[in-house]
């Protein structure tokens, strides 16, 4: 098998057995990126020299009998994570010139485990988008059909893993930004529980919703990576101090007897019928493994998208106030005065969707509107979270579709923000309630991938990973690679 075809776990075994070196592996993937990324635009920055230097060190460490859990294994980081000495753009003109002075906690942990960073993945600007079309660096293309979007905002991470540029990438999810692109590119996308993974050094979009996670080809690889990323970090005030289980060791536990909840509203008219069929087939596979399905009711879930589009823009308008053209980032030329410096630096440095969300947030937080929108949304959010809590009294996981349709064409939804926002209709609930979720490849519709979405209770990553892993033992959808990138 070619090196780029191998999963993280297979590569770890190959490196351990001395079948190839980390330098050989790293060079092979860098060559592949150089040859193929012109078609996809999945990477904003390639860190070739640094990668080879890290790989050499990993090989030397291995020869000396040292090395961490990810020693010599390649990874791509979403460009939302600060990487010391390397441009960290967040997909924005605002940060096109920003060289991070420090590493994000997860970048640090993954590096300490010995992984080799190949580069930084393209993304929707400040993670605001569901198609990767809001990036200052241009859209990412879907390896399964170059005229289509890979989803977003972690589109570059998903496309990189789907095109076999790397076996794994980091990503972030505020309303579905890991799971939706994973579904649209035939990869596994894991969004952990809110607070499970440190957000220190992860550029903030909506702080009560943002969470870092992974894009891989298998649940086993997601477990391997999460084991390194998860855990308490004093530098993130929302990090939760809970023990980190051995996610890999728990993959083998049986699915038999597992209670799987199905949400009726998730299979209504908004869902493409062929996607629905694939998802139902996937649920039948879980049943064949001994899982029991039962219908669960989430009476307020229909309000999750409007709730999100109050809470997320409100938090974004506050978080993005730090971009003022003074301390770092883009500054407009020849400002007349300080006010002009702020307004033009922000007006010229941010793209359309980011400005739209900042203004939406400013509006819902402004005098006279706060109660009607922001407070109301936080109340509805509580109702939605309570619905999930009640549901998880009766079931272990909730299963359904990740996305209402397979990958859509680039340009199809850019003119109507609401149509674009509705892409995340099945994923947003987990963010509002702080729950973990995973998307797993479950088949194709007209040659385009479809994802099965599983949501678990707080800190239920193990049950999600186990369910996804056992499903992947029975199916081989995840082994399919896009023809143009095999």
């Amino acid at each position, binding site marked *: 098998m070619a090196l780029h075809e191998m999963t993280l776990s297979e590569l770890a075994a190959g490196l351990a057995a001395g079948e190839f070196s980390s330098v050989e592996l790293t060079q092979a993937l860098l060559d592949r990126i150089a040859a193929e990324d012109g078609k996809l635009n999945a990477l904003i920055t390639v860190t070739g020299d640094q990668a080879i230097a890290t790989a050499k060190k990993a090989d030397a460490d291995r020869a000396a009998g040292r090395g961490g859990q990810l020693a010599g294994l390649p990874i791509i980081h979403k460009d939302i994570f600060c990487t010391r000495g390397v441009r960290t753009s967040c997909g924005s003109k605002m940060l096109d010139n920003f060289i991070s002075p420090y590493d994000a906690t997860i970048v640090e942990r993954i590096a300490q485990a010995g992984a080799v960073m190949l580069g930084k993945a393209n993304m929707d600007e400040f993670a605001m988008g569901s198609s990767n079309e809001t990036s200052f660096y241009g859209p990412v293309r879907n390896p399964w059909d170059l005229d289509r979007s890979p989803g977003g905002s972690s589109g570059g991470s998903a496309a990189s893993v789907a095109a076999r540029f790397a076996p794994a990438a980091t990503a972030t999810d505020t309303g579905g930004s890991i799971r939706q692109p994973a579904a649209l590119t035939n990869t596994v996308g894991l969004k952990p529980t809110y607070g499970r993974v440190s957000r220190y050094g992860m550029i903030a979009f909506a702080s009560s919703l943002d969470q870092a996670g992974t894009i891989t080809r298998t649940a086993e690889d997601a477990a391997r990576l999460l084991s390194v990323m998860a855990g308490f970090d004093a530098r993130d005030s929302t990090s939760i101090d809970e023990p980190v289980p051995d996610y890999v060791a728990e993959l083998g536990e049986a699915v038999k007897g597992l209670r799987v909840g199905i949400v009726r509203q998730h299979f209504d008219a908004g869902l493409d019928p062929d996607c629905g069929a694939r998802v139902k087939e996937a649920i039948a596979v879980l049943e064949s493994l001994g899982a029991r399905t039962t219908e669960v009711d989430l009476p307020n879930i229909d309000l999750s998208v409007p709730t999100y589009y109050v809470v997320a823009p409100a938090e974004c308008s506050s978080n993005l106030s730090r971009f003022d053209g003074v301390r770092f980032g883009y500054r407009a030329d020849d400002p007349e005065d300080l006010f002009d410096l702020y307004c033009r630096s922000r007006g010229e440095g941010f793209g359309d969707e980011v400005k739209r969300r900042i203004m939406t947030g400013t509006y819902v937080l402004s005098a006279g509107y706060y109660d009607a929108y922001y407070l109301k*949304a936080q109340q509805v959010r*509580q*109702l939605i979270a309570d619905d999930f809590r009640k549901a998880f009294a009766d079931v272990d996981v909730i299963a359904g579709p990740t996305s209402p349709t397979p990958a859509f064409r680039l340009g199809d939804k850019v003119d109507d923000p609401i149509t674009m926002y509705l892409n995340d209709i099945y994923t947003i609930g987990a963010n509002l309630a702080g729950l973990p979720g995973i998307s797993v490849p479950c088949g194709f519709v007209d040659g385009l991938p479809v994802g099965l979405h599983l949501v678990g209770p707080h800190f239920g990553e193990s049950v999600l990973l186990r369910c996804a892993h056992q499903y992947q033992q029975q199916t081989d959808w995840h082994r399919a690679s896009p023809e143009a990138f095999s």
Partner: protein
Amino acid sequence: MGGRNTTENPGKNNVSLDKDQVRHIATLARLKLTDEEYDESVDKLSRIVDFVDQLSRADTDGVMPMAHPLDAAQRLRPDVVTETDDRDRFQANAPSTRDGLYLVPKVIE
């Protein structure tokens, strides 16, 4: 800022924003927009506000607004110095500095 414009007819743009409101929001948000951007913002922000207005139909009487998805409280740490002086390294990213200060256009005449 003016009041909400609500029409009797259900359908698109029940709740809409006008250009003056959008100008006011842009000023609050410190965003300079082009004329074209203003026109587009009036249309798109109105659609977004109309969309999120469906929250008004939810019965939330007596519901505590969510403060944290896991009901966690803010953690405190001992009040000790944890950061070293990294000013030069941080200011390497600044558009304009002198003697360790960030420079902006003259504020006081």
